[in-house]
């Protein structure tokens, strides 16, 4: 099985540690993951802000690069949801039909092979115990696209529960949006900040040391607020916790 990593532009540029963690974790589980160099961005920001023509171009770019692989693993719930939910819709728009006539077939081929990290672990590799060690009190924010777009359900929880030393505490109001929403955070800054303040309040109630999620965009938003408030709570991507081992644990 040839497995490719789609790192996403945000992780590639701002959170390389998450990418390194995915590589470490997959290698430990016997997967020789590849990194196709030509990859860039899934197009989520463009499409969700109202620039679908860019989205069509990036979707076409994506399907070309990943066509040859059996599975594509992505450490981002919202990018996976973008690919799974929006690519098929983009592919049938008039703009796509005119400029990228083959996109529909390409999307039909590639999209079913794209997995969020926890889907790949639980559904494809069929593991929940990945041999991780992380002796900390952790709470998990499911993020909207992982929860309502991908229906990840209890996969992340099952993975975290198997991590040795980890104490998982439930997050009140977990299913509520943190207020990130891409350009929403800037366009509707006041509402976004108010939503995040409530999310942060709930995180603080748990007494957790670490807030975990499967999407660094949301974590950048919540983490940025936690840091501004000098809360002492740090944020970590699910991959980074699952990659941690005794000796290597932070």
């Amino acid at each position, binding site marked *: 099985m040839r497995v490719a990593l789609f*790192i996403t*532009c945000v*992780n*590639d*540029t*701002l*959170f*390389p*540690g998450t*990418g390194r963690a995915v*590589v470490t974790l997959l*290698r430990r589980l016997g997967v020789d993951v590849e990194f196709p*160099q030509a*990859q*860039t*961005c899934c*197009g989520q*920001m*463009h*499409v*969700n*802000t*109202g*620039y*679908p023509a*860019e989205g069509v*171009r*990036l979707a076409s770019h994506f399907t070309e690069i990943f066509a040859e692989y059996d599975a594509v693993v992505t450490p981002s719930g919202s990018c996976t949801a973008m690919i799974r939910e*929006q690519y098929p819709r983009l592919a049938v728009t008039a703009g796509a039909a005119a400029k990228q006539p083959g996109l529909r077939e390409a999307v039909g081929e590639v999209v079913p092979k794209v997995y969020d990290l926890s889907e790949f672990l639980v559904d494809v590799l069929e593991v929940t115990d990945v041999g991780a060690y992380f002796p900390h009190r952790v709470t998990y924010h499911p993020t*909207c*696209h992982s929860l*309502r*777009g991908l229906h990840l359900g209890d996969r992340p929880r099952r993975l975290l529960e198997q991590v040795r030393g980890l104490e998982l505490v439930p997050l009140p109001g977990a*299913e*509520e*949006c943190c*207020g*990130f*929403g*891409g*350009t*929403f*955070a*800037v*366009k*509707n*800054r*006041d*509402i*976004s*900040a*108010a*939503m*995040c303040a409530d999310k942060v309040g709930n995180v603080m109630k748990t007494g957790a040391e670490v807030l975990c999620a499967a999407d660094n965009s949301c974590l*950048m*938003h919540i983490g*940025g*607020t936690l*840091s*501004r408030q000098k809360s002492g709570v740090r944020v970590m991507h699910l991959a980074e916790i699952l990659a941690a081992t005794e000796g290597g644990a932070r």
Partner: protein
Amino acid sequence: MSQTFVGMPSFPKNAAKAVQDSQLRFNLRKATHTIRGKRAAVVGELPDWAELRQAGKAIKDHTLRHLDEYLLQLEAAVSAAGGTVHWAKDAAEANRIVAGLVKATGEREVVKVKSMATQEIGLNEALEAEGIKAYETDLAELIVQLGDDWPSHILVPAIHRNRAEIREIFLAHMPDAPPDLTDEPRALAEAARLHLRERFLRAKVAISGANFMIAESGTLVVLESEGNGRMCLTLPETLISVVGIEKLLPTWRDLEVFLQLLPRSSTGERMNPYTSMWTGSVEGQDFHLVLLDNGRTDVLADEIGRQALRCIRCSACLNVCPVYERAGGHAYGSVYPGPIGAILTPQLRGMDTELDRSLPFASSLCGACYEVCPVAIDIPSVLVDLRAKARHPRTERAGMAAAGWVFNRSARLARAQRFGGRMRRLVPKRLPGPLSGWTDTRDLPDIPKDSFRAWWNRTEGGTR
């Protein structure tokens, strides 16, 4: 739609003000979370909810596809039952028709059943201009009307008011309110009841909307919780119903689905308390039906946007929306607030104003609305589609074009990352311009020296 919202600023500006109002935040949070919980409980107890929801969606889609035929069938059935059907292409025409019908009776007063369609066309104001006084009889609408205020929720128009505020409004604007009125819900309801009772007995003309119209029988259906609607529908000698053309259902049997979906989604009740149904004119009452287009056929022409016409105005999407909960209904500048308003208003009114252009962006696309919608309207998808149709600010267009250029070639992205890595120490803690929206309340993440791809290349995927 109603003219009252003309000239309102954009959603972000309205919302920024509303979010500072701690009383409003408290009222809204309490009310929406209570209804949210009730809905979740009664929906959860139906094992076939998903099937019901699919059935609701399918029936509505079928009806919309054959709307022309079903509307004619409805017209024939209502006429055969002694009612008169009027067609109104826009708000002005509908208002003219209704005013003419009221004047023909010689009356100067009408009582009203809670109705979104008549709010949408600004009927009360139009009648007022013709010297006709319209009295709202739904308790919450009465509070809004007495307070010279706007509704801020589809189902609970006075959701932004608490008991103490309602007491103030009654004392100030309801001449027959007892001077020792308390803010006990029972006392407030009793005062309103006495006030309205007298209105019902005096009224000769009533105006309503309808939740559903049945094409095969010509029956109209109104669901309400107070019984005040039923008083209006039965007592007066003339009944005028203004109904959007999308409220049709083909057959009586279709109600089976919707009488389950609607109460559970809107009030969180298993069964609706007062369900009134009538067909044409009955002895002692003349019936007029005004069928309202007002932009709906244009919405119907849009492949993605047309699903908004499935809406049964249950408000479930408002009650789960984190943006609505913090911004309140008035920020949307329309009688249709919340997620459904964000997709319906720009379609009905167009996107010519700053406010209407900002509505499709009034969402973090969290998807909570889609999840609860009883007719499965994919609100996030319609929002994204409307965003593509909206005119974008010039600086944003330039930024998006630049980002697109970078993303088109991985070499450009790598170069941009290297540049960012070198400049990382120079990034200010507070960003300028529109991006200050980020750094006002959040710290920026540290920009790493190496991007992931730089690390991968340097270490051959971590093997060196």
